[in-house]
C-alpha cells in the first residue's frame, strides 16, 4: 500500500461520509484501511461503481464488495484554476483525473494526479493509487490519489 506523506489539496474541503443508509460505507471504510473496494456481483460477476443496492445486470440485491488493486489508466482529466471553495482560494491550479480500472470492469474513479500541477496529463497512461489518510480531520477519512506508474 502506497501512502501519501501530505495532502494534495488544502484542508477545509467537504469530508466524505457514507450516506445515512450506509450504501457506500464499505468503500470509505476500505479506503481508511488502505483497500480499494468496488462492488462485484457474486451472481453474474458484473462490476459496479458507484455503489447501488442492486446489481444493475442481474438484479440481485447487495452486490458484494471486492478488494481490487489500486491501479488504472487515465481516462480523462482537468486542470482546475478557478477556486470554487474558500479552502482553495490562492491555492493555484490542481489536476483531477478520471481513472479507469481495467481489472474491475472498467469502472472509473475520480482523484487527483499527484505531482506538478502543470505536468502533462496523458490519457491512457498507467497510474497507481496512493492512499491519502486524513487522520487529523474531525471525522478521519482517506482519499485515493493517483500518480504515474514509475517506469
Amino acid at each position: 500500500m502506497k501512502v501519501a506523506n501530505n495532502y494534495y489539496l488544502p484542508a477545509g474541503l467537504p469530508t466524505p461520509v457514507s450516506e445515512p443508509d450506509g450504501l457506500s460505507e464499505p468503500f470509505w471504510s476500505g479506503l481508511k484501511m488502505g483497500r480499494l473496494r468496488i462492488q462485484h456481483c457474486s451472481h453474474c460477476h458484473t462490476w459496479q461503481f458507484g455503489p447501488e443496492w442492486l446489481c444493475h445486470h442481474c438484479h440481485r440485491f447487495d452486490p458484494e464488495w471486492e478488494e481490487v488493486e489500486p491501479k488504472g489508466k487515465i481516462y480523462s482529466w482537468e486542470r482546475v484554476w478557478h477556486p470554487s471553495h474558500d479552502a482553495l482560494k490562492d491555492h493555484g491550479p490542481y489536476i483531477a483525473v478520471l481513472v479507469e480500472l481495467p481489472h474491475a470492469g472498467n469502472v472509473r474513479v475520480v482523484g487527483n494526479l499527484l505531482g506538478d500541477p502543470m505536468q502533462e496529463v496523458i490519457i491512457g497512461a498507467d497510474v497507481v493509487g496512493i492512499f491519502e489518510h486524513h487522520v487529523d480531520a474531525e471525522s478521519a477519512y482517506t482519499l485515493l490519489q493517483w500518480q504515474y506508474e514509475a517506469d
Partner: protein
Amino acid sequence: MKSNTLRGQVAIAGIGESNYYRHGKSPDSEFKIALQAILAACDDAGIPPAQIDGFASFSDDRNDASRLAAALGIRQLRSATMQWGGGGGGCCAAVANGAAAILAGMAECVVVFRSLAQGQFGRFGRTTGINTISGEKAYLMPYGVLAPPQRFAMRVRRFMHEHGVRQEAMRAIAMASYHHAQANPRAVMHGKPLDEQRYDQSRWVVEPFHLYDCCMENDGAAAIILVSQERARDFKSKPVYVLGAAAGSGFRAGADPHNSPDYASANFGTLAPNLFRMAGVQPQDVGVVQSYENFTGGVLMTLVEHGLVEAQDINQFFTLDNLIAPSGKLPLNTSGGNLAECYVHGMELVVEAVRQVRGTSSSQADKSDIALVAGGPMVTPASNLLLGSEDVL
C-alpha cells in the same frame, strides 16, 4: 395500434420574459419576475391570465404552481408538472409535459416557465459552507471537483480526445453567442462584443474551459403559453407548433460518479432519433438551432448527436461564419443564449426558437421554419424539442 404523437397538436400562443439582469441585479424578487414573464406571455398571446389552467417547469423551480395560480387569480388549476433533474436538462421536457397535458385533455392553457434570480439564493459556482458530503458528491468534492465547470470538464476533455477536437471549435460557439447578443437589446452582454483575442486571453476556469466557455449566472424569467392546435389561430401572433419532443437519457447515463458507459456524450444518443421520428423530419431539415450551453463543449456533442455535423468534421464546421444568422450553415443560439443573453436554464432558448419560427428574432435565420432546441447537454434527464410553422405540418 394508434400512433401517439405531439406533432402539430399543440401550439405556442405567447412568449414573454422579465428584464434580464446580471447575477444579483434584479430589483425584483424571483417570484415577481416569474409573474412578469407569465403576464408578458399572456399579453403577447392576447390571453387573459385567468384562462391559464396549468403550469409546467423544471430544475426544481422554486416558484410553486399553486402560489402562481393564487397570485394570478386562476379559476381552476388542472395541471402542475415538474420535470426531474437539474440545470437546463428539463427546459424542453417541461414544454413536452405541458403539451402532453393539453393533448391528454388534462388542461387547456399551460404556462411553461422558469424563473431564476440566483442572486437571492446563492451561486452555483460556490460550495462553501458544507462540512460533510455523502453520495455522488463525496466521490468528487474532496478532490476539488466541486462546481459545474469542474463536473463537466472531464467529459468534454474525453470527447476532445476521442475526436481530435481543437479549442477553436468551442471558441466559435462562444463567439456566435456574443455576436448574436450584440443584435439583441434584451441580452445581458449586449454592447459587450467578444473577439478571438479576448477569448484566448481570458482566464481558464478549468481546462478545457476558458471563462467564455462557461454560461453566465443571471437573474431572469421566461415563459411560453401552450394551447391546443384547434385554438392556434385565435391569437395575435403567427402560431408555432410543437413538432416533436423527447426527454431522458441512455443506458446507465446516471451511473455516478462519472461511470456513464457513453461518457463522452451529451446524453442525446437515444433522444435524437425519438425526436426526429415524432416530428417526421430529418436533421437536414433543421434551419436554426438553440443548443443549451452550460459549457461550449456540450454544444459540440449535442450537434453531433442530433446528426447535424459529423464528429470528424467538428474542427472545420465550427467557425463563426457557419454559426451566425442570417445565412451561416447552421445559425446557433441566435439570441445569445446562456452565454450572452441570459441564463434562464434554457427557457430563453425555447422563447428564441419560437421567435425564429415566427420570423421575429433579432438575428433572424434565413431558414427558420423548423427550429431545434436541445436542453442540458451532459446531464440526465436531458430533453429536446422541435418547433415548426404551419407550413411544415
